[in-house]
């Protein structure tokens, strides 16, 4: 959420953004009738209707009808296209708003699109981590990795792809249930049965494949070390083995789901033994020492 940009500045930013993206789209799809433009423009660009917006731009001579049945941009229209806004749109990270990006852009004037984008994504990642929205954290690591790839910073890209997978296979969604189990509010069998299959998101796997050569066991250990979590379903060795299987084409689903289930069982046993006191998140109520074993 922007706190620094005021209301009218936000509106100007959004209007400029809408025009940039729309006119750029028109240039790339000159044969397409406005009625077939993405419906998502109506939410993402804050416009009411594609057809009327196109007509409005045509009236202002920013675009014009062509012989292919669609529109083309005029010279005046092309001047309105801000390449960084277009890059922002095409990057497509739904968690960040163009106004946040604009605010960062002002502070990173001389640097590239990626610098501003990186700040925005990182801030959002920390926010979501605090909120405990782990699927979003995983997605944001993935997006940050993609951003690094754009700048050919392959080491950092690899790091974030591994971090994304690490979060995805951390078992965090089951943390609450484990606590409830230790408090006696949930039966052990219920928690054990609630463990479902975990599958690696394909976009992350593709990213890992592209940087396979950089990923070593130490690399994975580094990711673990720099991102401590309250719960770890996999050890660094197990995650590294998983990455090799996924990227090398030797992934056997049955075997791996079995391993994950076994790891979860071990996690449950461990939790019972230590009472989870040592793993309590700062700020949360600590479990009584000795647990309920």
């Amino acid at each position, binding site marked *: 959420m922007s706190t620094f940009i005021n209301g009218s500045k936000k509106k100007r930013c959004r209007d400029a953004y809408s025009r940039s993206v729309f006119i750029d789209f028109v240039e790339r799809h000159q044969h397409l009738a406005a009625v077939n433009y*993405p419906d998502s423009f109506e939410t993402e660009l804050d416009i009411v209707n594609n057809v009327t917006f196109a007509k409005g731009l045509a009236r202002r001579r920013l675009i014009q009808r062509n012989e292919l049945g669609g529109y083309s941009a005029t010279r005046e229209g092309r001047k309105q296209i801000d390449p960084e806004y277009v890059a922002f749109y095409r990057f497509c990270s739904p968690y960040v708003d163009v106004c946040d990006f604009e605010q960062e852009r002002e502070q990173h004037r001389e640097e590239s699109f990626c610098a501003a984008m990186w700040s925005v994504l990182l801030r959002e990642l920390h926010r979501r981590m605090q909120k405990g929205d782990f*699927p979003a954290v995983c997605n944001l690591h993935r997006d940050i990795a993609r951003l690094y790839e754009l700048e050919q910073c392959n080491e950092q890209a690899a790091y974030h792809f591994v971090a994304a997978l690490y979060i995805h296979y951390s078992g965090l969604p089951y943390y609450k249930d484990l606590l409830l189990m230790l408090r006696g509010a949930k039966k052990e069998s219920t928690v054990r049965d609630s463990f479902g299959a975990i599958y690696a998101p394909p976009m992350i796997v593709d990213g890992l494949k592209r940087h396979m050569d950089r990923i070593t066991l130490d690399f994975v250990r580094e990711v673990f070390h720099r991102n401590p979590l309250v719960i770890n379903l996999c050890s660094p060795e197990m995650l590294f083995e998983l990455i090799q299987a996924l990227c090398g084409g030797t992934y056997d689903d049955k075997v791996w789901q079995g391993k994950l289930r076994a790891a979860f069982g071990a996690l449950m046993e461990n939790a019972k033994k230590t009472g989870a006191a040592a793993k309590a998140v700062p700020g949360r109520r600590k479990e009584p020492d000795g647990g309920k074993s």
Partner: protein
Amino acid sequence: MTEEHEVVIQFRNVTKTFDLFKNDKQRLKSLLFRNTNARKKVAIDNLSFDIRQGEAVAILGKNGAGKSTMLKMISGVTFPTVGSVRVTGRVSALLEVSGGFDPELSGRENIYFRGELLGISRDELKEMEPDIVAFSELGSYIDMPIRTYSSGMKSKLGFSINANIRPDIIIVDEALSVGDKDFRAKCRRRITEILNSGVTFLFVTHSTAEAKNFCKRGLVIREGKLVFDGDIKDAAAFYEKMHV
């Protein structure tokens, strides 16, 4: 046609949840107030993928995995709860056997009905009408109301309309391509023609053999999640060996 390699279908972090309300009172409250304490059913969970112009993609998944919800989002019938769905171009999809047909209108009238809803002009439809009617092989039935049709006839008309209205993106649900061997062979030939013309093709199927026939890429959906995205042979193998 949109240039090749341009992304025409883009899903990012898409999640779709349905509210399950227990009673009318909760439903009415949801109309005016934002916070609802209803239980939620997750139909699609954090789906992200890109499909480019001209790709032929198979969508594999068991019934109830979330395939039809995903297709409805591509067609613009429903919207994601979270995340972004971007679709560029005219989408032609038959989402159910009797999908979008007015049962009281005849087959011929329905061609115009469907076509106009997709934004195609009446003149363009007049041009396409003879091909559609001929392909459907419905003969004189084309002028009878749809409610008199068997499900096989509805599928024939549906496929015929889908395949002949020059879409940019076409979705075919294999469960709907019925008819005898000859008709199915005709459908296959038409699909191959369509593939060669650079139309983006989405094929929903349970049969990995058919998928390998037409598609180069496979998406495997399980319980609302995208679990595999890659070469069709690998996708088919993954789907078959998927741990239940």
